């Protein structure tokens, strides 16, 4: 049966393999090639590097840039304060050191920066500058192309190739051709971004993908890491974005960009009632207004001059055209009415939040030969575009050194066979057993319903507690089994199938993390109503996890918070290797 779908096996050897050609991945590849043009650097990208990932639509600011007066340390201080005191100072600091250089590189490649009379960048807050960033991804892709790295578009990574606790390459399949890739590498940099679609999104049906974070960033990097035994951190710190209602366009553009106040239905600037106005408290306060009868809430841009109509439309066309269409559909100019705001579905994302791979300051994960950078890397929130680039650079620089002493490992052919089987079986099922199965979409609905209802989705105001989380845990385990009855109709569908598989595993980790942290550190993001207060004495520490694929169990471990000191990242897991015998 397999034969009908038996793919051609393509074997590639890469000095450095980069998985995900987004912000971090592009910059990693460019950096590696700059450091050593002789190296074979391969980038695999599930979409097309020209318009993939977070930047597909564009951005309108560089949100992590040190304007005059700011330093790497002041950046660390800010991020730490905004994250209830728990970040990896070392990671954030090493990002801070590179932010401005990454910014300059973007400018060199042709990204249009707005400038003031003196030729300086136009600040949008203390750590942000304005850009016309519609073309940012094609610009990065052009730099990538020029770097000489080999780019494989429409090639979806499915798993690392692991030997013991060492990552020696990755498996991938093409969604365009019937090809399965076996890529050996001396070092692998994971840059697959974060995860959307774990939870029921704000909209459903015909608008189900109208979300802030790209629905195509599905957490595969996390899932691959988990399956290989890599350690993850802070999945309980879900990032929930305060966004423009319905279209889910970002709000920083107006909140920070034009200093629009957050007002409630009575016109009160309700944040005044809060001492702590960190990112999650701005969200929490908004929900509170709604729950207590003072909603909905808005960003009030009605005070602005008419010039801002054009300015705001441009800013959003550069990043998130949805709100521009919304204004058009309402027949209004932007400044004619306040824009309503809401909380998004919870995302797992290390670029805005804290969740991701547990890494050291060189961006090494707990698996040998594996690096992580960008939204997939944990411990350092608020890195955004330039922080992701910085991490790509750091990882690539270290990898270039690291591989000097590394030779390619041989790959057990049975591993390849097994992975082909795992990857393509849903297509086979579609030939023969379709009658009994469900489509990837249907399992996705199931996953999102479980997470929404039992693990603190939008419909429960993001609140979680033990009993419900335990149910989520059980249901997700069952779902993971049920997905084996699923089928895929074609290669596109097969990609969706694996996206669900991966999301389920990530969701399981999220639930374990939420269960473990018995305090409420970040309102909304991690709100345990059975432990409603922040408890620094017991909980100013990281909650980390390692998946034991033999036992199919997610193990939680604690890592201390050590103020600013560099971390030694040691491997504590057993990983895939243990269960072979």
């Amino acid at each position: 049966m397999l034969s009908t779908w038996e793919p051609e096996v393509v074997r590639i050897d890469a000095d450095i393999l980069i998985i995900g050609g987004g912000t971090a991945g592009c910059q990693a590849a460019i950096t590696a090639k700059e450091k050593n043009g002789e190296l074979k650097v391969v980038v695999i990208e599930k979409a097309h590097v020209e318009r993939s990932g977070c930047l597909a639509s564009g951005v309108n600011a560089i949100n992590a840039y040190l304007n005059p007066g700011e330093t790497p340390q002041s950046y660390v201080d800010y991020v730490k304060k905004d994250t209830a005191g728990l970040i990896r100072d070392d990671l954030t600091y090493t990002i801070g050191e590179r932010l401005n250089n990454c910014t300059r590189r973007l400018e060199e490649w042709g990204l249009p920066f707005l400038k003031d009379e003196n030729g300086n960048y136009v600040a949008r807050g203390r750590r942000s500058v304005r850009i016309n960033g519609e073309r940012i991804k094609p610009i990065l892709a052009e730099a990538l192309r020029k770097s000489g790295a080999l780019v494989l578009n429409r090639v979806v990574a499915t798993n690392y190739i692991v030997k013991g606790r060492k990552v020696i390459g990755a498996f991938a399949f093409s969604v365009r051709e019937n090809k399965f890739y076996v890529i050996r590498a001396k070092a692998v940099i994971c840059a697959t971004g974060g995860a959307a679609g774990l939870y029921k999104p704000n909209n459903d049906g015909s608008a189900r993908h109208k979300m802030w974070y790209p629905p195509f960033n599905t957490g595969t990097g996390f899932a691959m890491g988990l399956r290989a035994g890599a350690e993850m951190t802070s999945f309980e710190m879900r990032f929930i974005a305060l966004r423009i209602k319905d279209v889910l366009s970002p709000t920083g553009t107006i909140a920070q960009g034009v200093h629009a106040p957050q007002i409630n239905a009575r016109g009160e600037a309700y944040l005044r009632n809060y001492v702590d106005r960190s990112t999650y408290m701005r969200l929490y306060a908004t929900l509170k207004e709604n729950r207590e009868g003072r909603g909905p809430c808005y960003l009030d841009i009605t005070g602005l001059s008419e010039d801002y109509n054009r300015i705001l439309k441009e800013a959003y066309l550069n990043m998130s055209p949805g709100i521009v269409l919304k204004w058009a559909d309402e027949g209004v100019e932007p400044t004619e009415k306040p824009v309503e705001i809401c909380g998004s579905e919870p995302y797992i994302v290390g670029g805005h939040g804290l969740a991701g791979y547990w890494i050291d300051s060189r961006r090494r994960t707990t698996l040998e030969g594996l690096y992580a950078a960008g939204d997939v890397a944990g411990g350092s929130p608020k890195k955004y575009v330039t922080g992701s680039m910085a991490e790509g650079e750091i990882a690539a620089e270290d990898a270039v050194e690291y591989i000097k002493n590394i030779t390619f490992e041989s790959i057990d052919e049975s591993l390849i066979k097994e992975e082909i089987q795992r990857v393509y079986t849903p297509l086979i099922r579609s030939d023969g057993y379709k009658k009994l199965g469900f489509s990837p979409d249907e399992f996705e609905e199931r996953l999102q319903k479980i997470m929404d209802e039992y693990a603190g989705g939008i419909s429960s105001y993001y609140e979680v507690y033990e009993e419900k989380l335990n149910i989520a845990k059980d249901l997700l385990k069952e779902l993971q089994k049920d997905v084996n009855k699923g089928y895929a109709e074609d290669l596109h569908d097969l990609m969706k199938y694996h996206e669900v598989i991966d999301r389920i595993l990530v969701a399981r980790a999220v639930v374990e993390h939420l269960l473990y942290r018995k305090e409420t550190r970040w309102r909304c993001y991690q709100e345990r109503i059975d432990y409603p207060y922040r408890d620094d004495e017991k909980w100013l520490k990281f909650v980390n996890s390692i998946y034991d694929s033999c036992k199919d169990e997610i193990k939680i471990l604690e890592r201390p918070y050590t103020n600013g000191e560099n971390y030694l990242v040691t491997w504590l897991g057993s990983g895939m290797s243990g269960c072979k015998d």
Partner: protein
Amino acid sequence: MAVRIDRELCNGCGKLDEPLCVRICPGDLLYKNTDGKAAIRDTRDCWDCAACIKECPKQAIEMYLPAQIGGRGSTLKARKSRDKIIWMLKRADGVEEIIEIEAHRIV
């Protein structure tokens, strides 16, 4: 549901192996139909990123909001040049607006 392909305007990108919109969509949602024109697999999966509408040389693709979130038929098209992006916003009431923005500072 958020992009609509005008089958009159679309020429399937002529002789290109892979049409430009098919090549670019980050969700792999577009494909070349048996009739040689572009089509979307499932409009519910569109992220509204606008990559395809910028890419189409025929301006055959337009973006709009689903009715669920207040869509009423306003549409957005785009034309890109080497250094600019030109947006064509058409309100449901017919009012049109052209917005031109610098996109690439050629150095």
